[in-house]
């Protein structure tokens, strides 16, 4: 599903589809697109940014310490590994 420029797409439920690059976390991509969401630690230990992954795969840059359910991700410490669809907790 990788686009020619190597970028992947993040579809946000009830929002827009945005392009993400390999060197940024999902939270960073959302921030660049001016999409507000709650975050605290940005290191995967507080769980404030917990979001639902509906479709696709992510790759963690830091081992998440906060409790996340099987269908949840922490956007502060993972990158998209394919095109993804997520539902964020504003």
């Amino acid at each position, binding site marked *: 599903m990788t686009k020619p420029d190597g970028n992947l797409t993040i579809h946000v439920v009830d929002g827009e589809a945005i392009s993400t690059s390999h060197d940024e976390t999902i939270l960073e991509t959302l921030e660049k697109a001016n999409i507000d969401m709650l*975050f*605290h630690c940005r290191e995967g230990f507080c769980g404030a940014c917990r979001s639902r992954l509906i479709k696709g795969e992510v790759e963690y840059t830091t081992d998440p310490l906060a409790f996340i359910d099987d269908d949840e991700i922490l956007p502060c410490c993972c990158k998209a590994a394919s095109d993804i669809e997520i539902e964020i907790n*504003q």
Partner: protein
Amino acid sequence: MKYTTFNQKSTNPLVEPMFFGNPVNVARYDQQKHAIFEKLIEKQISFFWRPEEVDVSKDRVDFQKLTESEKHIFISNLKYQTLLDSVQGRSPNIAFLPLISLPELETWVETWSFFETIHSRSYTHILRNLFSDPSEIFEDIVMNEEIKRRAADISKYYDDLIFATQLWQTLGEGTHTVNGERHLITMRELKKKMYLCMNSVNALEAIRFYVSFACTFAFAERKLMEGNSKIIRLIARDENLHLSSTQTILNLWAKGKDDPEMAEIAEECKEEASHIFLNAVEQEKQWAEYLFANGSMIGLNKDILCQYIEYIANHRMSAIGLGQPFEIKSNPLPWMNNYLNSDHVQVAPQESEISSYLVGQIDSSVSEEDFADFEL
């Protein structure tokens, strides 16, 4: 069941539940039933800091410039945080340790509580700098009705669990009469008390601290009391981790990933757990009212603070499967995120998490190729 500090029976901690199984004997961390607690310990230790490292001397000048209503907000919050950490510096140890069956969880609770004592010591550091004799402030914590009301609610669930545990340890299961009062002690009742206590601690870590944090950071937004703000940022980072641990415990129970009876209790006591949380929300709103009784401060008032409590409560409650009871959808204090971000926490380099200081970062196997670009 009598508590023993070293259980002579050979046990397998990999199959024990978190609480109410066999008492822990060997403090070993090479294997873990729930590896998350070992990771939390490592993370928490990597956060180690000392209050004295933060220079708060400039705050004294700032404090003199605050209006009377701002002084009231500042000092009241410090008193309340002192109360919260006085409770948290001892209670997890006294209430949970006698009932824990996993070495990694036991050490996590001890580590967690120890860090709360660092927080307590930092309040003394802050107050000693502002007042030549801070006694009056400390003494008011047990006199002030607003604070006492909160103290009663916070310690209630701990005290209840501790007392039931003492009866169970000395008299076993059954109905026991103490000072004319009858107490039913069964394993189910003990587990219920544990569940409710954990919810109350979770609510404490999840929202009770945040009214104070918001006020502190609102001062910092105006470049006031910045030494204090640096310390509170370090405290907030630790509290985030503690919150994460109570959320993990509650979720492990609710999702049946630990003690199956606890999953039943979580379902059975869901409404009571919600009530504990909503009660804390209500109390914090009352606290906001008390803080702003003499006047607001620039950038923050009672209404915004109450909205923030609801906003945070929605997030914290949904994290433990209690839904989002409040209407509010967007963050009324977006700048709070920046103060709670651990990247922005400034500490001495030897204490911070820069990778060059992390133990085990030095590679002991060096091959000849590693020196290929070296010229003498």
